[in-house]
């Protein structure tokens, strides 16, 4: 192979890479078109768009946080219980003052995140095991705190349930995560960590602290999502946030997020994945499929997307 040939090959694969980055967007367009046809345009009506958008905020916000965790190649299964617990804290504190409630939610999330990060780093336990354990732990707390009755927030809190407020919060979180990911050195570190932890450590990055920080951040961000959750539902039951973490995982995967994180992690997986996920959910309902069939379709699509987007070269031994 001459030098010219190899350069041509290299340039071609770079275009291939650029094309791969666009797949999620194409996926979004495809799924909107598909459901537009299948629901005979119903999904594009203002009513259904508003319905979809009303569901988007907690998922969007929490996914931004988990995005950071997945970039380093870890997973966070405690997000659902975290949402529940933080929502309970928000509701309880809402009787004192709303800003305090918001702060309380964030601090709860932060605390749980720190716990996750600590056990993961200090004891070298894989993140999925740590977060499954904390999921259990805090799900138990939620159940305990709501044993006798759901925890209600101050009734006036639903006054905050306005689109512009929710949009501000969501937009704010997304903006901050985007800026940090693209314009701070932390973003570079996260991608490097995901792609090669040892080499990143040998480059002077304090990988242990970065990991703890990422889990804490994901927790705190979900604390914000908890506030959004509370202003929408007003009171929290023991099942609050159930399976939220799997919804997040599916959303990010559909948005093109590689399972192992690394350099190919793109921020746009967050909004695009969330939208695809919600359109898929609502579209399937609109077509008239029952819950079980919807889930079946979602499971199949999930497997298909993962199989297509996984970066097999990056995963050295697949377990």
């Amino acid at each position, binding site marked *: 192979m001459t030098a010219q040939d190899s350069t041509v090959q290299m340039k071609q694969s770079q275009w291939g890479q650029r094309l791969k980055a666009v797949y999620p967007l194409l996926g979004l367009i495809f799924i909107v078109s598909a459901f537009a046809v299948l629901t005979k345009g119903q999904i594009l009506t203002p009513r259904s768009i508003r319905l979809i958008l009303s569901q988007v905020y907690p998922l969007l916000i929490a996914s931004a946080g988990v995005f950071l965790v997945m970039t380093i190649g870890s997973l966070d299964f405690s997000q659902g219980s975290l949402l529940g617990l933080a929502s309970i804290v928000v509701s309880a504190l809402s009787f004192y003052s709303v800003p305090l409630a918001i702060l309380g939610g964030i601090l709860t999330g932060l605390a749980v995140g720190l716990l996750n990060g600590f056990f993961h780093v200090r004891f070298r336990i894989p993140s999925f095991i740590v977060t499954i354990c904390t999921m259990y732990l805090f799900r138990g707390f939620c159940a305990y705190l709501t044993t006798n009755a759901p925890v209600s927030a101050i009734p006036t809190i639903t006054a905050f349930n306005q689109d512009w407020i929710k949009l501000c919060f969501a937009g704010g979180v997304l903006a901050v995560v985007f800026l940090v990911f693209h314009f701070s*050195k932390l973003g570079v570190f996260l991608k*490097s960590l995901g792609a*090669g932890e040892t080499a990143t450590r*040998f480059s*002077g*990055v304090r990988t242990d602290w970065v990991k703890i920080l990422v889990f804490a951040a994901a927790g705190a961000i979900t604390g914000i999502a908890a506030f959004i959750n509370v202003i929408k539902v007003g009171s929290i039951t023991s099942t609050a946030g159930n399976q939220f973490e799997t919804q997040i995982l599916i959303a990010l995967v559909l948005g093109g997020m590689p399972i192992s994180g690394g*350099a190919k992690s793109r921020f746009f997986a967050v909004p695009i994945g969330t939208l695809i996920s919600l359109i898929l959910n609502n579209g399937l309902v609109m077509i008239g499929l029952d819950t079980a069939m919807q889930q079946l379709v979602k499971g199949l699509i999930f497997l298909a997307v993962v199989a297509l987007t996984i970066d097999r070269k990056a995963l050295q031994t697949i377990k």
Partner: protein
Amino acid sequence: MTTANTALKPVLQAVGVDKSFGITHAVNRVSLDLYRGEIRGLIGENGSGKSTFCSLLTGIHKLDGGHFLIDGDMLAVRNQIEANNRGVSIIVQETGTLPGLTVAENIFLGNEKQFTRFGVKNTRAMNRRAQKLLDDYGFSHIRAAQAIESYNFENRKLVEIVKATYFKPLVLIVDETTTALSQSGRDELYKIMQETRADNRTVIFISHDLPEVLSHTDNISVLRDGELIDTVKSAGTTEDDLKRLMVGRVLDDRYYRKDYGERQAGSLALSVRGLCVPGQFDDLDLDLYKGEILGIGGLSECGMHEVGKAIFGASYHRTGSVTLADGSSINTVTEAIRKGIAYASKDREMESLVVNTTIKDNIILPTLSQTAAVKPLNHKALKRFAVKYANQLSVKMTGVEQYVNQLSGGNKQKVVLARWLGKDSDIYILDSPTRGIDVKVKADIYALMSDLRSQGKSILMISEEMQELMGMCDRILIMKEGRINAEFARSRDLREEDIIQKML
């Protein structure tokens, strides 16, 4: 056929066996004959090809060219079990047994069929057979049904010996196993070797311990740079004879430094006292001066590779001190980088480079790790930074956004150096900097090293290639079994034979 004829026919023949790993021509058309009832020593310095030759024989790597014949039949195996079935067996240097299994399971791993009927494995019979074997070998203190984890390294090696020899292989390879054993362990091994020979079968014995090789073999084959140099009778050969065969090269100095004169070394840059990493090296002292290239050489496992890592602050359980000229001590990687120390690891792809990301990210990473936390990134400036240093080293790439895993070995190493140049490091610890790199890039790297030296930077070069140590270093330290054994100064009269004396 008369006995005389069968005695002359070789049991194992290597015919033009050839293997390359990228640029490195590990085994270069080696042809070798082994006879029954022989213990053949196989020696050579680092990179001479002995381990690769054996891994080709046992199916761990695939041949690029040539073939093996065993008793006249073609030998082409794909894994160790197939090799065993054809009568070729190996006892490796590191741990060859699997934790999580019992002793008996380890001995018969892959060979359980003999105990299995209709899918049911007769474990009791397997354990009994294993115990009988252990008893026959004189290892009765090892119980066949016990988990192998309950035994120490030496006992596990004994199990491995049983595993590799119980089926009376035609050719038994002992690959540098003796170094890790106590004297009693070695005696066991010698006994097995002698029994194998008495049984009219063959042993290939690889070791760096020349006296040991001379006293326990019939003939010795010497490899150098992947080629078979000669085969000599052990009786009547001296250590010096062997060493001469092992090195005897003419120094090819086209790529190295031309100067042999005044030492330009300046003041002290870095000082190491009592450095120790358990299991690797002990009580190490060295001084590194500005404007000098200090080399460390020795056999692969003499501990020198860990020294580089330890000075950089990346070793676990390190004791001792590493101090800079300004008195500050280096204990962690972050401190090392902040104080201007650079480290290029021998394990390039795992420790020096993040291969699954862009050239740009790799080059900026060490510098970035030291900048203030909240400064926003200016991507254009970063890109220019990366391009500048990539070009300074003439990295062949399509652009800094290219992924490192697409580059050739030499260019990958250039990226490693580019990142440290970008960090404006003062002390460079380079471990095996030109391993597996083609000649042209090697020359570039040597030129860079000379350049850095004349700028007053310090370089610590750890290398298994004696040639480059002799060609590039102002001083060479030779390590042996975890300690510094000798120091040589740069000189035109320095010969490989002198150095290898201190390595072995």
